[in-house]
């Protein structure tokens, strides 16, 4: 179905509600004295938006607002994932000592605005909407990354993010302008049709795609556009780093999948896709995937300082793993990728949450502050952290194993054995640095100066939920997998 403006409004409750709430929270900031209440309001807003998305799941798929936004299972699934990331981030922020010290007024509104941008990234159907939503997320993220104004590192992180982000999105808009020129349209489906009918001009299209990939690759922190990630994660407040690592990465994957699968490829029957326009972007992304995971893991091996920086490199590696599901160009791969990103959400937010709990008590976030964590009051977070890290490695019986299993299965099915081999080798390498944190937490004895780590109920509830999710999805993943399977359907046309 192709709905007009008024009919579209009735099918976009979650995004509309978020948009109004952003403005409302900015205004409420002027009258409410206790700024924590704004955080509670933001939490409620996201919860209502989640319910709104769930309600839309049963509606018919189609295009909204002159075909600039689509309503399909794929987009709704990613909106759910993004909103859940926002929910966890707001929950974390409410329990973060670092955030409590800041002037929180606009923090909540900007966080909600960023969520709104991500929700649009998941459903954009043309280049303009994709660019606008991506840039909206970028601009809000720059502010969030540098939100602690009194902190030198945060300000520096924000500047680096701004410069790398500005250049990457500049390159992307320039690449998009060539795609527009070659295809004569901004809309994904029309681009695909134009490339199907006149397949020449492969070289300009190739250059345009590489430039466009710069912007998208920047957001998912793929090699060679990853340079910002370690610095920004290290400098940004911990909840913000978690949000960038999960929310903005997931949203960028959604936009990237939709762009490449509906504009640059066409369904070839049997759940497979084939590239259009005579450009072999699949090989390009295959190389990017292999390099991204290898670089991320090798760089993480050297990280013995900041745990946030280590998680940034691990996030780069995981972007590489997820890209494996991309390059196989089948529904199997897409399904594995969607499932993996969901699992990644649970275990990565969980890992950041433990870092935050340690930082709350000790004021530090380096590896040394984890020394003997299990023996100084932090047994629960230490066990949870071990579960998250082993799940990130891909060890059974945790959810990360199932996620990686499906990714590798999809890759092997397409006979990309070398890529699968690189992926497995990388998983082995990653065990070294993940296990190092586990060893520091359990086998090293505290030296006395680290301080006691307390677990308050607020952070404990979220930690419990994420841990249960990571464990349960490792044993009983059927329902979620079926949901991911239904969500591979992209609305085309």
């Amino acid at each position: 179905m192709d709905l007009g403006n008024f009919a579209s409004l009735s099918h976009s409750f979650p995004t509309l509600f978020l948009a109004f709430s952003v403005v409302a929270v900015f205004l409420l900031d002027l009258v409410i004295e206790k700024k924590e209440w704004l955080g509670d309001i933001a939490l409620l807003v996201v919860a209502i938006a989640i319910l709104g998305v769930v309600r839309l799941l049963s509606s018919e798929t189609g295009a909204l607002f002159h075909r600039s936004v689509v309503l399909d299972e794929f987009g709704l699934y990613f909106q759910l994932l993004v909103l859940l990331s926002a929910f966890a981030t707001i929950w974390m922020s409410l329990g973060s000592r670092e955030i409590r010290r800041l002037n929180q007024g606009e923090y909540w509104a900007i966080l909600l605005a960023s969520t709104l941008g991500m929700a649009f990234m998941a459903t954009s159907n043309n280049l303009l909407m994709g660019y606008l939503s991506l840039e909206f997320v970028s601009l809000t993220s720059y502010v969030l990354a540098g939100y602690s104004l009194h902190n030198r590192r945060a300000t520096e992180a924000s500047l680096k993010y701004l410069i790398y982000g500005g250049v990457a999105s500049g390159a992307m808009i320039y690449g998009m302008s060539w795609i527009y020129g070659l295809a004569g349209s901004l809309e994904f489906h029309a681009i695909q049709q134009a490339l199907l009918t006149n397949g020449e001009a492969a070289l300009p299209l190739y250059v345009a795609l590489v430039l466009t990939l710069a912007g998208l690759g920047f957001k998912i922190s793929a090699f060679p556009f990853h340079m910002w990630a370690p610095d920004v994660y290290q400098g940004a407040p911990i909840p913000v780093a978690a949000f960038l690592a999960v929310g903005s990465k997931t949203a960028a994957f959604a936009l990237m999948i939709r762009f490449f699968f509906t504009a640059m490829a066409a369904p070839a029957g049997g759940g497979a896709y084939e590239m259009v326009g005579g450009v072999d972007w699949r090989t390009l992304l295959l190389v990017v995937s292999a390099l991204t995971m290898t670089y991320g893991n090798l760089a993480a091996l050297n990280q013995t300082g900041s745990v946030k920086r280590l998680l940034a490199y691990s996030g780069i590696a995981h972007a590489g793993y997820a890209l494996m599901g991309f390059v196989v160009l089948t529904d199997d791969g897409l399904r594995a990728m969607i499932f993996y990103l969901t699992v990644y959400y649970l275990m990565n937010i969980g890992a950041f949450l433990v870092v935050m709990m340690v930082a709350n008590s000790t004021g530090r976030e380096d590896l040394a502050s984890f020394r003997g964590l299990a023996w100084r009051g932090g047994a629960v977070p230490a066990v949870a952290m071990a579960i998250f890290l082993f799940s990130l490695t891909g060890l059974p019986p945790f959810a990360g194993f199932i996620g990686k299993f499906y990714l590798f299965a999809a890759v092997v099915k397409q006979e990309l054995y070398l890529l699968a081999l690189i992926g497995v080798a990388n998983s082995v390498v990653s065990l070294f640095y993940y296990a190092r944190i586990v060893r520091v937490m359990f086998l090293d004895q505290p030296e006395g100066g680290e301080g006691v780590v307390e677990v308050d109920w607020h952070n404990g509830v979220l930690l419990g939920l994420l841990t249960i999710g990571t464990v349960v999805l490792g044993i009983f993943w059927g329902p979620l997998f079926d949901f991911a399977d239904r969500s591979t359907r992209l609305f085309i046309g």
Partner: protein
Amino acid sequence: MLDIGLHHFLTVSVLVFIAGLFTVLTRRNAIGVLMGVELILNSANINYIAFSRFGGSGYDGQIFTIFAIMLAAAEAAIGLAIVLGIYRKFETIDVEATDTLRG
């Protein structure tokens, strides 16, 4: 009289794009870098308008340009605020002097 066509616009836009990229890579002053980013954005704007005018594909490109100009303004506002914050903390806006996060 020289007949100006699509190719001329595309050439100009490539030159502006390269100038922008060169500025970003060589400037050490943060505001200089931001100006390079603006050049890159404007090179894309030239492309959109040229393709829209000569490609006969309606006004999509021009609409894109209007949005891009607005976004460039928003980015400049946030960028300058961040640079101001950098100046307060580091007392310089040299991007190499502010490179302290290492690991």
